[in-house]
């Protein structure tokens, strides 16, 4: 894990803090600009965290690709019948 110091005027949050912000950032839930800047700065010089982020992005893409399911025709027909009753 990285213990590099900041050289661009951004706080170096360190790997521990980056870990806690990690998934929120990847999910677009980190909305504080300063937190985003600090996280991205950490990522720019920490190979370990960067690799994990790349892994997570790839994993999320695989999950999205694998999880899409089309409802069976029988279910579609069943729901149409159901709604017709109302």
């Amino acid at each position, binding site marked *: 894990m990285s213990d590099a110091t900041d050289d661009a005027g951004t706080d170096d949050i360190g790997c521990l803090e980056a870990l806690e912000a990690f998934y929120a950032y990847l999910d677009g839930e980190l909305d504080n600009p300063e937190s985003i800047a600090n996280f991205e700065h950490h990522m720019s010089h920490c190979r370990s965290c960067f690799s994990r982020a790349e892994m997570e992005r790839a994993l999320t893409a695989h999950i999205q690709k694998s999880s899409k399911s089309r*409802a069976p025709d029988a279910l579609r027909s069943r729901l149409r019948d159901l709604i017709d009753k109302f």
Partner: protein
Amino acid sequence: MDPLYGVALRLTRNSADAEDLVAEAVAKAWAAIDALEDRARFRPWLFRILHNYFLSDYRKKSVRPTEEHLEEVFVDEGEGDVYSLLNDQPDEFLKWWANPEKALLNNLLGEKIMSAIDGLPAAFRTAILLVNVEGLTYDEAAEALGVPSGTVRSRMKRGRTMLQKALWEQARDAGLTVSDNMDGSEI
């Protein structure tokens, strides 16, 4: 309908049960649509009906219940941070986790990934599906699951760490990981 069925399928892990679950949830939603004041909240509201039905009536009626299925719904998730969670993991996994090989995923079939997702406790599996697959925000997922937003955040962290570990174990069992190789050039 497809997103509802997709989540139902991952919850029930059975297509027949998933169809029943979606049909019941849609019937309940259709009957209660007038109670939805903010139509912009339709998606989380609908997912919440689906999830609630899964947790209650559906489990009682299911012809295919399993002890694992029942227990996992009430998993003790706590609010532990990722660092604490990692303290309990084996060294080999931590070594890989500190510098994962992205190529590992490309060597695992989609069915292996789905198997790993299906192996997660329902609370984590559902949060991951709602956020990462259906694109709900943490607040919307919290509304759908009837939990605070912080709980969704916690479930996302823990669930995905568990998922990575499950995938790593599958890759290790298949001889796809080289734990001493830290440059990511080979798996």
